[in-house]
């Protein structure tokens, strides 16, 4: 990860924070302290250490508190510019303008906000804008629900964004810092959504361990972008940032296609950086040799852990695969980790079962996948229900 701005390591920014290498936030070089705080509060702490140029906010439950706390960072001087936009479609366009102008950008949204903003996300990736979107997922109307539901992640899968799903506040903090580093690599340079389950992570307090606020990420260097920065500091080539699809001829169709293929290739190239920063793999495996494997992401993982504890007490042979990166999808890791399992259970907090579909389309012998259990619209997923559903499935499969 060579970088011109690396020469800044050890120097101080205007707030007196020392620029540090990403590795040093997590390898013990930078002193850490423990706190008891919510996911919203941890967003403020992560942004404070991320040398963010601009953040644009808009209220929608459950991300409003985090978005407002980032505003406090602007008043304190840790974020250079901040304002409230008029709605999520505009906010994500304002973020695009800020990123095109060369700033590191942070924003947040939830559920209906994600969908209102939707047209912007493929534009972000098409424009190769490494914007950080913290997604605090919630249900999507109708009927109205403000409660946790991961369906919007499934709707973002083909937008060309990187998508990581954090299980808890600690991981949210880590993913925001690491996410910027991966998203801004010149051979990646794509937007990234770091998702958490709304309320379950945003509004509950947990113990977290975070590096000293006296340190921050290296600043974004817009001139490492693979496309020109829109600041008239480089020669004004007569090519717009968008592919020129306005003419009806084969070369324009090909321009669009090759541009889109390049975005997909950039997602693939992100793997090497993400693996390194996520401890070697895009997944975590516990008891991987077990007959039954629960495989999912987000807080469904936490509930699965509890279910596994209950099942182990009953003498069942059960393990866990936790998926941390959804785009890129950990294809090889998942294939390998699930190769020996006889039953693969995919608990999800949404009604569509997009994660089960992802897994089914990745592995061999995919009839081993049990789609569900599902809860939606904010329902919790009690571990007892997971166990009960698995037992039912096992009985069913024995019968047939």
């Amino acid at each position, binding site marked *: 990860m060579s970088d011109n701005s690396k020469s800044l390591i050890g120097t101080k920014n205007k707030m007196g924070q020392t620029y540090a290498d990403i590795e040093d936030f997590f390898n013990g070089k930078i002193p850490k302290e423990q706190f008891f705080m919510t996911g919203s509060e941890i967003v403020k702490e992560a942004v404070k250490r991320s040398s963010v140029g601009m953040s644009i906010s808009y209220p929608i439950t459950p991300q409003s508190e985090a978005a407002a706390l980032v505003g406090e960072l602007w008043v304190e001087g840790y974020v250079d510019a901040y*304002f409230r936009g008029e709605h999520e479609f505009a906010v994500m366009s304002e973020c695009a303008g800020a990123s095109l102008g060369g*700033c590191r950008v942070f924003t947040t949204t939830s559920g209906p906000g994600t969908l209102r903003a939707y047209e912007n996300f493929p534009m972000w990736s098409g424009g190769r804008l490494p914007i950080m979107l913290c997604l605090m997922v919630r249900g999507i109307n109708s009927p109205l629900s403000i409660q946790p539901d991961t369906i919007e992640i499934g709707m973002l899968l083909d937008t060309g964004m990187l998508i990581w799903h954090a299980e808890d506040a600690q991981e949210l903090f880590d993913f925001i810092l690491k996410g910027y580093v991966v998203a801004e690599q010149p051979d990646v340079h794509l937007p990234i959504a770091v998702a958490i389950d709304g309320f379950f992570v945003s509004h509950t307090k947990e113990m977290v361990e975070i590096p000293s606020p006296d340190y921050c990420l290296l600043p974004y260097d817009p001139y490492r972008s693979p496309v020109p920065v829109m600041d008239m500091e480089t020669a004004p080539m*007569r090519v717009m940032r968008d592919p020129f699809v306005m003419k009806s001829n084969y070369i324009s169709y090909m321009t669009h296609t090759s541009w889109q293929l390049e975005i997909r290739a950039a997602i693939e190239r992100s793997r090497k950086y993400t693996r390194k920063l996520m401890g070697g793999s895009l997944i975590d495996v516990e008891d991987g040799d077990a007959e039954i494997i629960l495989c999912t992401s987000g807080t469904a993982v936490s509930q699965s852990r509890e279910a596994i504890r209950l099942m182990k007490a009953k003498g069942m042979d059960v393990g866990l695969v936790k998926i941390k990166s959804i785009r890129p999808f950990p294809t090889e890791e998942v294939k390998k980790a699930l190769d020996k399992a006889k039953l693969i259970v995919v608990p999800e907090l949404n009604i569509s079962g997009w994660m089960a579909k992802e897994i089914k389309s990745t592995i061999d012998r995919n009839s081993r996948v049990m789609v569900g259990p599902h809860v939606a619209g904010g329902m919790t997923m009690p571990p007892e229900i997971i166990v009960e559903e698995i037992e039912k499935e096992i009985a069913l499969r024995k019968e047939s």
Partner: protein
Amino acid sequence: MSTNIVRMSEALADVMPQEYKDLVAHSTYGKVDRGWRDLGESKELIEQHSLCAGCPESLGFRYIMSSLPNPEDTVMVGSTGCTSLVFPHIAVHNIHSLFGNQNAIASGLKRALEVRFPDQVKDVVVLAGDGATVDIGIDMTLQSWFRQEKFTTICFDNEFYANTGGQESGLMQKQFVGKMAPAGKQFDKVNLPQLAIDSGCHYVANLTTSKPMRVEKVIRNAIMVAREIGPSYVQLYTPCILELGLQSNDALDEMKGAEKKNERFEFFEYKTDEVTEYLDKLDAERKERKEARKAAKKGA
């Protein structure tokens, strides 16, 4: 940007395209008091366009590009439509992202440039059609004015969705029969200049592209006001000859008709007192420079 940046490596000079060589040798980056009179005597910032022959939009676009006070430090934001056929060919950085979000893009962009270049002038200019400005993008147009975002919004008003084939737009005249208005448009042409005043624009102008000198002055005023004081808005009538069924040489007459007294594009200019004082000062300075140039010419 230093104008030095538009230079060629001598080693590559023989393989650079002629249009780029012309741009380096004969463009007007950095020239004080640029204007429409440079057309024909210098390399234009528009290389080519694929608009219809005689299209007033192509005329307006060239006048605007020749009137930018600081093209070497200007970033333009467009939207989807006929203008997006021209933007890829202009020699200033320009952004096309989505349809209707141009004032939101410009808000983020202008603030980013202020953060990154606090001691440098960086003008941001939005140029979009009436559908993008008034219909699909009206909320973002108005909100950027409410927030006092310091950039200029220019609307090419052809009273249609022209690029998609002549559908009704909010700036279309009442009772005009167009696509999607088969019984004639049922409501009045939206009075965006008045909305601009009410929404906090400090300089507003409504005109046609029939008079290049006037367009030059209005564009320069609007950009200088946005740079120093606050948002500005310019509405330019650029009739779509194709959709109106006119010939290529009819456009000028169409515009002259539309700018007559009490017609919808009668020249209108709104300035706050602060703006009047500021623009008078700029005009005086400009006059001084002009006289100095005249004197120097005489002396030579």
